[in-house]
């Protein structure tokens, strides 16, 4: 919402400065977005007279002008404008002035050998318009030497404020003035609302054809104007419209726009001579009906859209936009002016369906002053006849009227209860009344009637807001929230704590934390087992961000690709965030995924650098599960990892029959899809799949440490290559029994000395006795059992 200072002061009688008002507006809920003072930028520009203009000796298109600036000797200026001539008045920018349109500070200089000390300006150079055909020509009586901006009425600062959706009443300058007056920043000047006396009957009448849906148009008023002229708008009106960015068109059109900004009241002007028949029908659109709007576009209307039509069909989309066919033009002699109230939901629905935005729609759908058709008609009629001449008809009206009267119970104690502000009842009443509310007191409570322009007021809480807002939120007391506990309690429960701990643990393992979008491209969703219509956005930002992700891996792989392109091929990332298996709340999972690409370390001289492999991913997954409370020693590995992993270098970590995490080298096709050149491994788990450990309290179980010497025994087994190492380890653990305290597989060998199809696995076990030092016989017995079970279960032969 834009207006100018003087425009505001047309409605507000005040001795406050603009700065005071600008400080007050945001505290009333009217946020100031910008203030532009054009006079400040144009301060050096003055009115000057061209005394002589002679042909430049060295340039065909330039003239050498002697310019009188009103003080001192005439100044010589070289000017390229075709209209520069002796005797004309124009706008002069002296040396040192900053010319906004060309972003240049003027310096004294020579142009083709002739001195030039300043500039005669075009409108574009002063950023007043795009006009650049010549320099500005001012009337002969323009006073030389006077600053140009005040002369041209540009010393009226432009204010833009943001209006929240509830404050339709402030979509007009008068509403803003009313709020300021209520807050003590002056008084609202009276608006002459006396009804006008029409002098003839309107040749056009309304007819509501709404088949019982009369609520769509509760009130519509029309006034016909005869013998009007439609010249350019008066300068004061044109200036204000220009200032707020609206191009003046003609008086009739400009008046409708001006009233919309001035009073927040959209109007529509028809040319009576273009209306077919003597009726304007308010009705719903007919099937297949088309409408050519003022914006020069044609719309296909649906049957729930409210239109205004003559005998030839719809030519006004009620509350949204007028039609091309019956609109006013330069030749209009007879005008019919529409002042209406339409159903806000109907206007909003129509506008949204047609994707048609307008200043009128913006106001209609937020709710207008319900009494405007009656109250404002006189003012508007007088404005039209004062500018365009002619005479106005008697009003024609239709509609059953807007039932806007409602009473809201308010207890004066409510303010304190809801806001903590202690304000005498009398002052509360005064504030409400200054905003136009009617307060009737009864024994226990007040009955408050909101004014016709405050359709947003819904209940007592809204009234409290009005009182608090005008009294000032600065007066809200500052109260500490009462403490519930002397020592504060944790904000997270056991489940919510897990991602916090997991994040730290993964970062400690060298994975950088990433946050990537919850959506991705359909192609990538498909590669990772997702996609499908149910999880595809109807209105994505782009196709690349259109499907809810089934996995956090693809976005991480893409990020690795971006880093590779920036010269960082070695990249380790993780993310903890949502993935979506369906659109129900129960289909959302919290995924934890990590990837490693390239090498484990930068190039260095110690030799720790190596390429990443599947065991990096396995170790990350095991670590993550460990943090989540899983006893990793109890996990088994299943080979059925998803197909985006390398089929022979991937697995699933299982706890019993529950799948907890997948890990592996990414399938080469996946790596190449993301353009990754190095080996890339990853893992993913869903936190929801990992059961929460039972709460056991902080105490640990009692630690029993053996007093006896542990012993180690090494074994090297030869077995078939396709026997899983985990099977051998399980057999050894089982055979070694309760004394086993540690087991490590410390060598894997295939090659010379081992026949084809076989491998050698070397394992060391640690036996820790609890009751007495182990004898050689006891150790031998355990060793024999290990060897026997390894052979029985895995076909493993102890290497000689």
């Amino acid at each position, binding site marked *: 919402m834009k207006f100018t200072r003087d425009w505001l002061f047309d409605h507000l009688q005040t001795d406050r400065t603009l700065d005071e008002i600008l400080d007050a507006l945001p*505290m009333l*809920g009217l*946020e100031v977005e910008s203030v532009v003072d054009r006079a400040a930028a144009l301060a050096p520009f003055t009115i000057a007279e061209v005394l002589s203009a002679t042909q430049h000796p060295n340039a065909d298109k330039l003239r050498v002008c002697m310019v009188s600036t009103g003080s001192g000797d005439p100044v010589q200026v070289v000017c390229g404008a075709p209209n520069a001539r002796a005797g004309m008045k124009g706008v002069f920018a002296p040396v040192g002035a900053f010319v906004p349109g060309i972003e240049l500070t003027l310096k004294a200089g020579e142009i083709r050998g002739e001195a030039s000390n300043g500039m005669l300006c075009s409108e574009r150079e002063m950023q007043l318009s795009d006009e650049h055909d010549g320099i500005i020509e001012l009337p002969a009586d323009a006073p030389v030497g006077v600053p140009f901006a005040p002369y041209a009425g540009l010393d009226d600062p432009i204010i833009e404020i943001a209006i929240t*959706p509830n404050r339709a009443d402030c979509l007009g300058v008068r509403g803003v003035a009313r709020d300021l007056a209520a807050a003590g920043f002056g008084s609202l000047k009276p608006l002459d609302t006396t009804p006008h006396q029409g002098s003839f009957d309107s040749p056009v009448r309304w007819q509501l054809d709404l088949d019982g849906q009369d609520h769509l148009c509760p009130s519509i008023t029309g006034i016909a104007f005869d013998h009007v002229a439609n010249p350019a708008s008066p300068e004061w009106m044109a200036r204000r419209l220009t200032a707020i960015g609206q191009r003046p068109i003609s008086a009739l059109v400009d008046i409708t726009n001006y009233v919309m900004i001035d009073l927040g009241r959209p109007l529509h002007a028809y040319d009576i001579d273009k209306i077919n028949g003597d009726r304007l029908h308010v009705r719903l659109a007919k099937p297949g009906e088309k409408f050519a709007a003022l914006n020069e576009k044609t719309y296909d209307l649906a049957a729930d859209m409210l239109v205004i039509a003559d005998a030839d069909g719809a030519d006004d989309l009620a509350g949204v936009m007028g039609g091309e066919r019956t609109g006013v033009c330069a030749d209009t002699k007879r005008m019919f002016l529409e002042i209406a109230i339409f159903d806000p*939901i109907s206007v909003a629905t129509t506008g949204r369906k047609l994707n048609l935005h307008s200043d009128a729609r913006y106001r209609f*759908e937020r709710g207008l002053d319900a009494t405007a058709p009656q109250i404002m008609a006189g003012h508007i009629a007088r404005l039209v006849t004062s500018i365009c001449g002619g005479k106005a008809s008697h009003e024609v009206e239709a509609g059953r009227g807007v039932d806007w009267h409602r009473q809201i119970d308010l207890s004066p104690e409510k303010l304190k*209860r*809801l*806001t*903590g502000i202690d304000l005498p009842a009398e002052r509360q009443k005064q504030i409400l009344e200054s905003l136009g509310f009617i307060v009737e007191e009864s024994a226990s409570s007040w009955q408050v009637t909101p004014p016709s322009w405050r359709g947003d007021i*819904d*209940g*007592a*809480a*809204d009234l409290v*807001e009005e009182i*608090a807002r005008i009294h000032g*939120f600065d007066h*809200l*007391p*500052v*109260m*500490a*929230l009462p*403490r*519930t506990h002397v020592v*504060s*309690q944790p*904000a997270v*429960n056991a489940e*919510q704590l897990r991602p916090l701990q997991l*994040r*730290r*643990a993964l*970062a*400690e*393992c060298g*994975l*950088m*934390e*990433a*946050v990537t*979008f*919850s959506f991705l491209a359909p192609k990538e969703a498909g590669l990772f087992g997702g996609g499908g219509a149910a*999880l595809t*956005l*109807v209105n994505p*930002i*782009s196709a690349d961000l259109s499907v809810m992700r089934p996995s956090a891996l693809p976005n991480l792989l893409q*990020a690795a690709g*971006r*880093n590779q392109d920036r010269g960082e091929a070695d*990249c380790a990332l993780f993310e903890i*965030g949502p993935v979506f298996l369906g*659109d*129900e709340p129960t289909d*959302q999972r919290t995924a934890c995924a990590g990837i490693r690409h390239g090498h484990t*370390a930068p190039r260095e*001289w110690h030799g*720790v650098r190596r390429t990443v492999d599947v065991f990096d991913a396995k170790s990350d997954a095991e670590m993550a599960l460990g943090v989540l409370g899983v006893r990793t020693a109890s996990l088994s590995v299943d080979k059925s990892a998803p197909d985006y992993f390398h089929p022979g270098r991937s697995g699933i970590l299982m706890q019993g029959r529950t799948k907890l995490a997948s890990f592996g080298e990414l399938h080469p096709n996946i790596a190449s899809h993301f353009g990754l050149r190095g080996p890339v491994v990853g893992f993913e788990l869903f936190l929801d799949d990992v059961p929460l450990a039972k709460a056991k309290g902080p105490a640990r179980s009692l630690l029993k440490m053996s007093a006896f010497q542990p012993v180690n025994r090494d074994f090297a087994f030869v077995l078939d290559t396709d026997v899983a190492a985990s099977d051998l380890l399980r057999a050894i653990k089982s055979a070694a029994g309760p004394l086993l305290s540690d087991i490590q597989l410390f060598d894997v060998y295939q090659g010379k000395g081992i026949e084809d199809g076989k491998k050698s696995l070397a394992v060391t076990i640690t036996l820790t006795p609890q009751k007495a030092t182990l004898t050689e016989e006891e150790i031998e017995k355990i060793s024999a059992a290990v060897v026997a079970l390894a052979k029985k279960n895995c076909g493993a032969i102890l290497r000689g």
Partner: protein
Amino acid sequence: MQGLDAQSLKSVSDEIVQAVDAAENLEALDAIRVNALGKKGRISLLMRELGGMDADARKAAGQALNIVKDQVAAALEAKQFVLPQAALNEKLATEAIDVSLPSRPSREARLHPLSRTIEEVLAIFAEMGFQVAEGPDIESDYYNFTALNIPPEHPARQEHDTFYLPANADGQRKVLRTHTSPVQIRTMEAKEPPIRIIVPGRTYRSDHDATHSPMFHQCEGLVIGDGIHMGHLKGCLIDFCRAFFGVDDLPVRFRPSYFPFTEPSAEVDIGCTRDGGGLKIGAGDDWLEILGSGMVNPRVLANCGYDPEKYQGFAFGMGIERIAMLKYGIPDLRTFYDSDLRWMRHYGFLPFDAPSIHAGLVGGAG
């Protein structure tokens, strides 16, 4: 006897000690020890001579001789220790390496500023008795809008730039939640007051430019309880802003505003200065908007089955990216989601650096 007079004994002692000092290795030292203290060593032979002396002379000479013996033994012992150290030192000298060579690379990873910022927010609200609540990212129209007093044609809906999923068989279309406020509804439906929740989470709006991301993070707060009024809202949010930005005297301003789900509603601004092009949070001549807030609208309470005459409370919401950018001087919103390693090394946080009230909420240097 002549060999045992003081002069002679001193010369014997000096001679042997000098020989010990001069010994170049353990073999030579051992030979000296044998020659001095061995069965036929010089000192042992002198000891034997004591037997032929009268009692007084023997006592005096014996004492003197014992001193010599002790001196020699001490010299030998000292040399016994020194000689192998010298050999070790020689060996160590040959083992020297260039310790200016770089050490083994350490794995240096960091936490994202967003998760860090969320934890800071949680730490502060935990102190004020809040507990974390969460809800789904894919929401029903009812929870995201209608229950929050935003009916279908409400103008506020158009400002939300909502992402939609396809309509199901009933014609209902799910949305990506445009704010974390639906969790207010879910929480109030599930439990009775008193309520103090803080809701961090992902939110979505179909807007993508320098200052808007289609996905971003919000943190919602809801307090319902006996006698909770707008003064508590003010106190709570002032306490939060000052703790979060670490500025004790940070000016905090409450401005009337509008949200369909609160009434009265307030925007919250914090003080700042923009002198010299840089933005500084603190007392100054300018304001920055960082929070939306208000008293929960009675219609919302009623939608959740609460009696608005009985219960009241406040709600607020803030953008996590925005407060992270302001606090940590991160200039560009879009960089949060790019996973650029250079950015993460610079703006990320070391994992051990957990924010807490006792250790402070201002992260270590980047």
